[in-house]
């Protein structure tokens, strides 16, 4: 008897679907948005947005809290007065922290999205998931205008997380409510 794989492939070939013309990409691949649009659209999702020049100063807001930070965030971010939690951390430790501070890989102005790819300053995915508060630092040069531009800057084989506002649901009467399983507060620092 043929394997499922062989049989499915044979049935696909048997369907003899004719080839098609190449895809016409007549849509806008560039976009024009910058910092302002990004800030506006992040805020639209009820995330908190600040445009700052000095990150350590802006991090004063974390004073007195127990904050998770990947080991490779810039040293100057690890300001005094904060209890910094570093890996290795268990799921329980992450869950019981007050929040997490990370950088990001790319941001998207059009959609108000930040993208994490697990590279420098971001840590593994669980870090930004279990703490109830996520503070994300976005450099202006990391902001792509459009979704196409952002995808071009990303390496698909890395573990990617696209974040647009705090966790939310539209499952009750199709109205959006913020705050379900992911961090209920998302704060974004745009470093200009």
């Amino acid at each position, binding site marked *: 008897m043929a394997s499922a794989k062989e049989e*499915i492939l044979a049935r696909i070939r048997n369907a003899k679907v004719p080839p098609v013309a190449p895809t016409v990409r007549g849509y806008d691949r560039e976009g024009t948005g910058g910092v302002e649009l990004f800030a506006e659209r992040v805020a639209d999702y009820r995330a908190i947005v600040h445009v700052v020049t000095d990150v350590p100063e802006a991090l004063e807001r974390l004073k007195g809290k127990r904050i998770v930070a990947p080991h490779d965030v810039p040293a100057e971010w690890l300001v005094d007065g904060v209890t910094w939690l570093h890996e290795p951390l268990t799921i329980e430790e992450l869950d019981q922290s007050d929040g997490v501070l990370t950088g990001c890989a790319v941001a998207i102005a059009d959609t108000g999205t930040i993208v994490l790819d697990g590279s420098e300053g971001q840590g593994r995915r669980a870090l930004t998931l279990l703490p109830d508060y996520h503070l994300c630092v976005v450099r202006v040069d990391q902001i792509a205008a459009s979704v196409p531009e952002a995808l071009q800057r990303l390496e698909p084989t890395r573990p990617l997380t696209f*974040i647009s506002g705090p966790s939310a649901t539209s499952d009750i009467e199709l109205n959006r409510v913020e705050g379900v399983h992911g961090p209920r507060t998302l704060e974004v620092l745009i470093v200009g």
Partner: protein
Amino acid sequence: MARNPVTWLGSPTFPKAAHEALADTQLRQNLRKATGTIRGRRAAAVGEMTDWEQLRVAGEQIKDDVLSRLDTLLLQLEESVTARGGVVHWARDAEEANKIVLDLCRAENAREVVKVKSMATAEIGLNEALEAGGVHAIETDLAELIVQLGDDRPSHILVPAIHRNRSEIREIFQRRMGVEVSDEPADLAEAARVYLREKFLTAKVAISGANFAVADSGSIVVLESEGNGRMCLTLPETLITVMGIEKLVPTWQDLEVFLQLLPRSSTAERMNPYTSVWTGVTPGDGPQRFHLVLIDNGRTATLEDSVGRQALRCIRCSACLNVCPVYERTGGQSYGSVYPGPIGAILTPQLVGDMHDPQAASLPFASSLCGACFEVCPVRIDIPSVLTHLRAEAVEAKGRTAESVAMAAAAWVFREASRYEKAQKAGSLARFLARDGRITSLPWPGSKWTASRDVPAPPSESFRAWWRKNRG
């Protein structure tokens, strides 16, 4: 061959199911409110895009490209997933897919698994199959959880509990979670958060679907809102993803189209809160065992149909449900399948693959052919055309009926103007049934019309009779 669980066993035909649903005041009210809300929000989200039509065309073309070389792309996907440490499984039908997943759960000694909302697993009846095999699947999407705790059935692709309003949800949560909670959506969401937290933190195995799989990189993509998806995709040691074989896109670049089309069409957001992308296994981050189960379950048969195969372009956004005047009134359960609404009316019968099944054969007729679905479809599925195509199949399968005899007679009359004119004259005698220029009651099948509508009395003179007299 086993019955395809895409339709629920024992479901009545659409008109019979609709008869019940139309009388359900609460259902009618809930759907009117929810679909009205999302229609307006979607229109706004799409309205701010200047290149929406170009994106739709590109979406259509990319998906058609996938369908034209599905074998090659699936093999490419398998190769890239395998190269990154994943294991790929193939399943011809629901039974085979369910057995693969159950065996994988047993191999991990898992008695309980967490699930991300997935149409593919709903289609194959995975939860029931796992339960029968001693593995309890916990739905973690809020709407899926509402359906699961309410021992209910889904009625919408995106929001399976769309037929429930806040106070009904509150009642279900209080009864099944044993908590006191208000009917404020934020409080209900909080109740779900608390209820599921422990499950997420302790689950060893998660099961997901996939919105997209990128053939050239082997990346799998899941779009969600609540973070339950991230929990399932990140915390457990083992991840099993079940996806239909048509969920592919050829390249990473192609996602730039769908990540714009899907969120605006489904939840009417510029971007959904969370999108996760993973490729096989990443050491030190997330599940260290990854299984991808590719299911056919009627798709290759659908692919053979040159008109019907466009249903396989579907990205499960639900926009067609939200604008459908039939769906809005009958709700999703009337379709007797996990795929309701306009897309369900063309996809379900094709996946069932048997137009002798009266329930499946009734679905293509559950439409007034108004075309609102085609207008909003982000991948431009011409649903009305597929509906009429499938109606022809249903008629053929039924053979000789009173209707087919009447239709043949009518066609015979219309083929010759002289016969048509004689019929007109005979028909105009019906004006003697009329009072005050209207007929209020006709014998069957005209009674189906006159139950709610009058018929105007036929005039004593047709237009052609007038023309002949005055202009001929």
